[in-house]
């Protein structure tokens, strides 16, 4: 059910570059609005650094709260990029084409936002920045390589560098295209960025090889990043809710579930904002939704196995912790909301073809998944900390303060603003992928039926 119309290359150029060459009317107001929230966030951070962490709701024993939840949430969202562009590029799925660059972009910006949170939540941020980097020759103060907090920057740094370079290499052909379409200062800028791209067969061949090779390299990195983030929690023996071996794959599947839903949300927004109806079609939402059903069910299976095995040894602490997390106020309410929004609304809804093909329904179900996934991380981190071993007491549970909520809002606005700024200078949908899919797709006559077909390259006989 390929529903696209044949477009000439010139039409593709004009439609897809409408965001990059001209300034859409709504763009200015959107950037200003988001910019204000970002400024509010920065000033709140300044206030917190000045007054100390007392302004947040943290205390003893809940030392980690909403900041680390949002950190894990944004690392989870960043897994959409590689899941869409790497895995689907390796399996040559046709429906990845309009989304690869936007997904990688979401990866890069959500990783940058994720990296800011460990700095924000630290007691002395001005020291954490340079003490994690292994450069301190003078005082012989080296980072402790056995600490998961050193694995984190290594993994996220690798993933961020890899994604940014992957994004740039895949952007080269479109930079050449933009260089040809612009004049004056912008032409100079794009000429410099396009490194003299001419589009000869050698460069195209390397583009396809690069796509396959970089995807193959980025895939193991993508799996390792969220495993390492989960080992921040899994390795501590004292916290019952955390010390479980299934955390690594459980977090990775959860990241894919929340990441791909974020891409679906973004696709719906892109289609609505830039009017790319020819390129982001209902069949893409349908394919992504079918993928999400499998990923969502796998993630839910991992959740159940984790809870099953945490109760398995019937030790007093574990039972008390699960009882608190699932049945006691206020965690019980959050647990129910989490289950409904992350699994019981979206996944059954996606089973119906009508839901999968309607863009607004897909938009709202994917947003509900991400609300649920944020709650899932919150319910893993905070209850486990507030109810550790017998000697840990807490009157009144942890509740986030206004400062923390502002900084969460800041992170959403920060990612949104960066995406809009990028979209102003570079096309969000790769032009050459659209043209390639036009050149490769054709129709095959089998009896009376004219069936859409795809072309696959074959080595020379």
């Amino acid at each position, binding site marked *: 059910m390929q529903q696209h119309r044949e477009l000439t290359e010139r039409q593709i150029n004009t439609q897809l570059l409408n965001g990059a060459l001209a300034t859409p009317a709504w763009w200015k107001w959107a950037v200003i609005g988001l910019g204000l929230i970002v400024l509010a966030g920065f000033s709140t951070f300044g206030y917190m650094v000045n007054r100390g962490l007392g302004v947040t709701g943290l205390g003893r024993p809940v030392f980690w709260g909403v900041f680390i939840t949002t950190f894990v949430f944004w690392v989870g969202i960043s897994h959409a990029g590689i899941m869409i562009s790497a895995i689907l590029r390796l399996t040559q799925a046709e429906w990845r084409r309009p989304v690869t660059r936007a997904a990688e972009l979401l990866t890069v910006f959500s990783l940058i936002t994720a990296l800011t949170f460990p700095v924000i939540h630290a007691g002395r941020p001005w020291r954490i920045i340079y003490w994690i980097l292994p450069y301190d020759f003078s005082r012989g103060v080296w980072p402790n390589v056995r600490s998961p907090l050193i694995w984190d920057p290594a993994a996220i740094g690798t993933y961020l560098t890899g994604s940014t370079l992957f994004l740039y290499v895949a952007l080269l052909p479109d930079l050449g295209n933009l260089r040809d379409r612009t004049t004056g200062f912008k032409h100079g800028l794009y000429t410099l960025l396009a490194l003299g791209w001419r589009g000869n067969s050698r460069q195209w061949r390397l583009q396809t090889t690069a796509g396959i090779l970089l995807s193959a390299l980025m895939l193991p990195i993508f799996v390792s990043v969220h495993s390492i983030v989960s*080992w921040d929690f899994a390795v501590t023996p004292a916290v019952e809710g955390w010390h479980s071996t299934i955390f690594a794959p459980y977090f990775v599947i959860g990241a894919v579930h929340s990441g791909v839903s974020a891409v679906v949300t973004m696709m719906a927004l892109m289609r609505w904002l830039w009017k790319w109806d020819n390129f982001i079609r209902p069949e893409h939402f349908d394919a992504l939704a079918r993928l999400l059903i499998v990923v969502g069910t796998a993630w839910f299976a991992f959740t159940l196995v984790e809870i099953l095995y945490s109760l398995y040894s019937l030790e007093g602490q574990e039972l008390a912790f699960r009882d608190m997390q699932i049945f006691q106020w206020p965690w019980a309410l959050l647990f129910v909301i989490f289950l409904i929004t992350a699994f019981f609304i979206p996944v059954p809804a996606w089973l119906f073809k009508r839901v999968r093909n309607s863009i607004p329904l897909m938009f709202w179900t994917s947003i509900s998944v991400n609300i649920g996934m944020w709650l899932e991380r919150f319910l893993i981190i905070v209850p486990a900390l507030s109810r550790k071993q017998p000697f840990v007491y807490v009157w009144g549970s942890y509740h986030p303060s206004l400062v923390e909520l502002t900084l969460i809002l800041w992170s959403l606005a920060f990612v949104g603003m960066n995406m809009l700024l990028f979209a102003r200078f570079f096309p969000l949908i790769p032009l050459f992928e659209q043209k390639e899919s036009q050149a490769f797709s054709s129709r095959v006559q089998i009896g009376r039926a004219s069936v859409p077909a795809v072309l696959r390259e074959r080595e020379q006989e």
Partner: protein
Amino acid sequence: MASHISTAPDHRPTFQESASQLIARGRTSAPASPARLWIVVLSAVTLVGVVGVAGRLAGGFADRSAWGYYAAVVSFLLSTAGAAPMVSIAPTLARASWVRPVTRVSQLFAAVGVVTALLYIPLVFALPPLVEDGVRRRSIWFGAPSLTPHLWGTISVLGLVFIGLALLWSSSIPDLKAVAETATGLRRRIAGRLSMGFIGTDTQWKALRMRIGVLGAFYFLFLVFTHIVFSADFAVALVAGWKDAIFPMYHAMTSLQSGLASTIVAAYFIRRFGRLERYIELDQFWAMSKLLFATSLLWFYFFFSAFIVFWYGRTGSDQAVIDILIGGPYRWAFIATFLLSFVIPLFSLMWNPVRHSIKGPTIIGSLILTGMLIDRIRIYAAAWSAEGINDRYLRFVPATHWPDPWDVFVIVGAIGAAALAFLLATRLVPAVSLWEIQYMRLLTRPVRFLKGHAFIIAKPD
């Protein structure tokens, strides 16, 4: 756009050629063909296995540690033969067309499931009940009646075999119809009755394809359930202090790897002895070796995410697992598995020429199968010989339990019986599914794109 595509010479076997070659081979196979010779040899080996099982039964169920190797063999067969159909189910659900020639090879492993089911029955009696003289031991069934693990273990293993056979049968109905038309004597009667009056009307084809899809998806869900139940009851529950949430997923993941390996090895032998070189081509082996490489990486990933949590945590239960499974009496088995299942596949399959060949994945696949057998021996021999099942932690690490002659007979006999069951199944149903080959031939066509060579693949859905 479509103007660039021009027809190219198509020298793949035509409909009549492939029909006669695949179906008739069963009827006109001359007595000197290797199949009959192999059947005699394998049935002798199976007899050895029966002797082994009888010897084991004579030893009685009192001494639990005697049944360690027996449980390892049952888990080995359940894992390899159980997961092999997944090799055809997953790509078919993902609508990949490369898998069509090997779908029948992977589904034929359901016949091996019969051997697994027969071997499984004595094991149920060897498993200690949940409540023994008033003391309830630890298990994932918590407060359930005493024989629940035995009941659910049997349901899961027999259910898996049943669904596997149903999948094999329903996907081979068209071929059975073709066999019934050309075969004589007993084969004709059996094939005729089994093909259930399939004529090939449009509705029958639609129903057939829908049935295969549903059975495939159900098989996948049931496989994960079986691995959770079998690994939890027959391994984890028997060792005091082994609290390892990832073990069921490790058990399922390693079985996917060995299922792939067994499909590759079986496809190699069928290709050579059945002279089917023109049907199971290099593309199938290439795609499967990519998956083999990916699952070998996943083997290390699942192992390491458990090991890092145990190594870092050092609590009582962590130390118990490392002592008995990795560092303790079965250290040699662990090192052998580590080399065979991860190091050798990693450093060999990472090279393109090895992956892009037919012999490469077959050799690596057989190494992975041996590694898998040793891995199961390491886990089950250790689990079944651990004392003090109701202690809080493993007080005393058991000595290495070396196999006695009955165990060796059972292992050799089980593998022989599995090969025999597979071979007998290929006598009734053609080893390469005729209707999928012809369906693939209908959908794909070699073409010339301008001057270059390419393939057109129609995507009807």
